[in-house]
């Protein structure tokens, strides 16, 4: 192979990549947090809600989890303007990722709900707690512990697989910046090698942070490696 790797040019533009990584982290955290809220509501409805609402949530989950996130984002980006709704590319990625994460998190959180024992809920009811109160004081602490590892794992998936999709509609997160810089001076291999390493470092930091958080808040041993 007669290829001369030239990383100098990458280091000169490293700050641009760092900006991208920062945006990646922001997108990931936002989509995950908002997705968790959707997932919590969705899982609560699937577990305790009335039939028509349950069906709606089921359709949402089945449809989202069986179609690509990229197509969902393309739909927001290319199709919604036809109905007079115009969002910026960042907004499309954020909303698309959030809706996508919401469906997967509904499934994950629902599994956690199933682990809550009926007897505990009844105990809460006899103590005069309302449904929202029972969810707040019984369900949430319980599932936090049982599904924390799955949640931590999903955060990494969103951070890596999810946010990079944004590059395809011109959002300048890490992958997007790597594409932008490469098209200027054609050092594709160098930029993408460095970007790949940055993803590895970023997710390792996230994994370690989540494992420590889990140990501190819920006393669970999340898998770092």
């Amino acid at each position, binding site marked *: 192979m007669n290829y001369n790797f030239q990383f100098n040019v990458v280091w000169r533009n490293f700050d641009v990549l760092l900006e991208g990584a920062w945006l990646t982290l922001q997108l990931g955290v936002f989509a995950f947090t908002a997705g968790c809220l959707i997932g919590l509501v969705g899982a609560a409805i699937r577990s305790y809600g009335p039939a028509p609402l349950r069906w709606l949530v089921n359709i949402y989950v089945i449809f989202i989890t069986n179609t690509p996130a990229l197509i969902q984002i*393309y*739909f927001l980006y290319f199709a919604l303007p036809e109905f007079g709704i115009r969002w910026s590319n960042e907004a499309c990625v954020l909303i698309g990722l959030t809706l996508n994460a919401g469906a997967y998190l509904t499934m994950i959180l629902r599994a956690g709900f199933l682990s809550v024992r009926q007897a505990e809920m009844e105990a809460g009811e006899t103590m005069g707690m309302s449904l929202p109160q029972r969810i707040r004081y019984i369900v949430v602490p319980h599932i936090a512990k049982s599904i924390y590892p799955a949640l931590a794992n999903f955060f990494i998936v969103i951070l890596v697989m999810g946010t990079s999709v944004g590059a395809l509609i011109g959002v300048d997160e890490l992958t997007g910046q790597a594409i932008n810089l490469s098209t200027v001076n054609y050092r594709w291999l160098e930029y993408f090698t460095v970007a790949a390493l940055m993803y590895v470092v970023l997710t390792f930091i996230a994994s370690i942070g989540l494992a420590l958080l889990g140990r501190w808040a819920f006393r669970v041993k999340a898998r770092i490696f």
Partner: protein
Amino acid sequence: MERILSQMPEFFSAKNLVLLAQSAGLTLSMTLMGCLIGFGLALVLVYLRTTPGLWALPLRVTCIAYVEVFRRIPFLVVIYLVLFFIQTIATDVSLFTIAVISICIYAIAYTADIIRGGIDSVPYTQIEAAQAMNLSRLQTMYLCVLPQAWPVIVPPAIAFAVSFIKDTALVSQIGVFELTFRGKELNNQGYSGALVFGTIALCYFAMSFPLSMLGQHLEKRLATPRGKRNPR
């Protein structure tokens, strides 16, 4: 809305439907090829990872590092790396091949973990029994361990492959004529985005949903002990 309705007859013309079917076929075939080859290579990787002895330490470390690193890199970045790496060493490689290699690299990292879990589920005493009978390490693996590990390995491996059908949408970026690329092309031809991407989404759904149902069915079936499955 009127635009969508008026475009419908033209959009669902025989020509476009054939194109869509071809693209869906391409999506499926590259997923299947990538995942199958990836699964095979993951088996090799996991086997190498169990090599005993100090001399094999670098080998073991490499295997572990591979899985850890590639699970943390976006598929899109892997696609670009494969594309440009292959273009610097060879000029005559089709985009389809590049897509399959990318899928393969990713599938190795994910299925290796699944396979390792399956192998770990087989009691170690089975391996000792085989060793005491002088079966080689390789024979022990394919005659005794893997056959018992399949029920643990196959369902999540299928689930991975099915969910990867969706992720292959990203290879549209390097110009493989799969579903998503076809969608962008039709959109560029002036068809309504809602019509095009709605249809494309339904195409993915039509592939992903039945296959994931099949996978779940298989999981339940494999979870039944053999004695109860076919009474003799």
